[in-house]
């Protein structure tokens, strides 16, 4: 599904440069649910951005679903992102003047679907996250948990192969966090491949595998017994 070999990335800082990723090897199979952990500065966000094609590695190989991701033009990257990836952000990143339904329909807009069709699809995904009655509410009329569920529905709308979540519970209280995690676990149960960047142990333990990063290298890569989120709710 996802194959990364000898990935290096450094950022220039003034005259010198900061080596953020120092040779990452990682492969993720379909249906896995992986937590990427590490303290700030460990390179976990950079790794996620490279996987998300928002950033490009200096060297190394990155293959996603059999496609070599290299030297992408902005246009190609946009098309791949739209086709392969679903993003879930810490701060939800909903568009505040579009209602829940239109937010979910946005990736479908960029796929070129007709309005009627994409609103139908969006409503289906919104129903899946249990927010059908809220379809016509603007983001500022929703709670944090609801916003994140809209964001998840949006990430799912284009039916991506890989779901990338960057601290999806970072802005939520514990109870809501677990509700969201419960939901993400269900998606994984249905077969979605999910990558979560987090620095919270309890969230990481709700995944099936934990990859620990420190100073740009993988320190530990272990499979764990998944803790079901609903038990904690």
């Amino acid at each position, binding site marked *: 599904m996802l194959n990364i070999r000898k990935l290096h990335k450094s950022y220039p800082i003034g005259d010198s440069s900061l080596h953020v990723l120092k040779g990452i090897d990682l492969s993720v199979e379909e249906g896995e649910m992986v937590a990427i952990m590490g303290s700030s500065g460990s390179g976990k966000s950079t790794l996620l951005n490279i996987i998300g094609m*928002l950033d490009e590695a200096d060297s190394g190989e990155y293959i996603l679903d059999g496609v070599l991701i290299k030297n992408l033009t902005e*246009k190609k990257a*946009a098309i791949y992102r*739209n086709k392969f990836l679903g993003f879930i952000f810490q701060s939800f*990143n909903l568009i505040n003047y579009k209602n829940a339904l*239109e937010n979910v329909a946005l990736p479908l807009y960029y796929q070129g679907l007709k309005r009627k069709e994409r609103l139908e699809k969006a409503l289906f995904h919104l129903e899946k996250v249990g927010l059908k009655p809220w379809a016509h509410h603007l983001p500022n009329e929703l709670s944090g948990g609801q916003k994140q569920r809209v964001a998840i529905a949006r990430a799912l709308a284009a039916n991506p192969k890989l779901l990338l979540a960057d601290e999806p519970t970072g802005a939520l209280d514990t109870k809501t966090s677990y509700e969201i995690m419960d939901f993400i676990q269900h998606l994984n149960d249905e077969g979605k491949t999910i990558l979560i960047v987090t620095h919270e142990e309890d969230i990481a333990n709700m995944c099936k595998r934990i990859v620990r990063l420190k100073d740009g290298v993988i320190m530990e890569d272990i499979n764990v017994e998944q803790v079901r989120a609903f038990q904690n709710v």
Partner: protein
Amino acid sequence: MMGFLFDRDTWQEIFESLGKNKLRTVLTMIGVWWGILLLISLLGSARGLENAFNRLFGDFATNSVFIWGQSTSKPFKGFQEGRFVRLTLTDARNVEENVEGIEFVVPRNQSQGLVVRNQLSGTFGINGDYPLLDRVQKKKMIRGRFINENDINENKKVVVISDEIYKQLFDKDEEMIGELIQIKGINFKIIGVFETGNVQMGPRSDIHIPFTTFQQIFNQGDNIGWMMITGKPDYNITQIEADAKLMLKNLNQIHPEDNRAFGSFNLGNEFKKVTGFLVGMQFLTWFVGLATLIAGVFAIGNILLITVKERTKEIGVRRALGATPFEIKRQVIVEAVFITLVSGLLGIISGGLILMLLNKSFGQGEDAVLVNPSVPLVVVFFSLVLLVGLGSLIGLIPAFKATSIKPIDALREE
């Protein structure tokens, strides 16, 4: 390809991003609105002036010069200075035959005379004229006809009068054709009445009698009062005037550099001055209008630049969700074109309203200052095309700004 223009999301985004700061949007639009308003209303007024002017001068062959004799100011060939110069029919014929580019020469005579009908009388200017006068200074005949060749050849005692003389000598609605009036005690038959024009060139001309008849009753011989020279359309009337004067000086033994021997009025030059003024005004209008317009469009580019900056994060999110740089740019450009076009259309409409208002207040009646102040559709169309062109050009700047920042950096923006 153009389908996105009909997509509700496209417009929702435009209105949303504009609505975020209504005041700023409106203030920016005023720039473009004002530019187009100026352009339309000034161009329309200039055209109205030009139309009014053309209507005033419509009765004249404008490529004309009038020449009359005065006193010499230089002694020449034994003649003292201060000699009074009288032009003659021979002079007129010589000018017509020898000066290049002349359409025709109309010799004229004028004198004052007592005009009597029944108990009514008055002293009026009386003109001796050839039928050709009608070609230089078109007479709008209300009744009857102007003098013809036959009247000239037979020295007929016929007269053409203006509607004003008619009003003074006749009762309202009284028949005048065929009636007699006395000029210098001689009976003349009225053959026509013409309308007094808006513009009088030279002395008032209310009463016209055949040139030959004039010669007889005023005992003028071959002398003429002045001549009207009309040039062919593609000849320069100033040159004709100079040539004619030089020839007349030669014929009348006048020093070639005597500038006071002949008086003249060059209608062509006067006309050119006014039309030149109108052209200048139109040029100024275009200049001011376009400059304002460009300033306005730049303001729009500026506001879009700010909007794009404010929406950096949103643009980042969109790109993460799969928006290509082209789609982002397209949206910004459509937005730019949309604002320019809307403010431009408003400008065109309000400019049109102003012209209608001007027409109502200054454009009515015979001696209106403005006649049909309007702007040709081509100009309206041109300004619309210009707006779209400028709008998309200026939209390119914020559009490239929007996609110049990498999505990853855009997402980090708070």
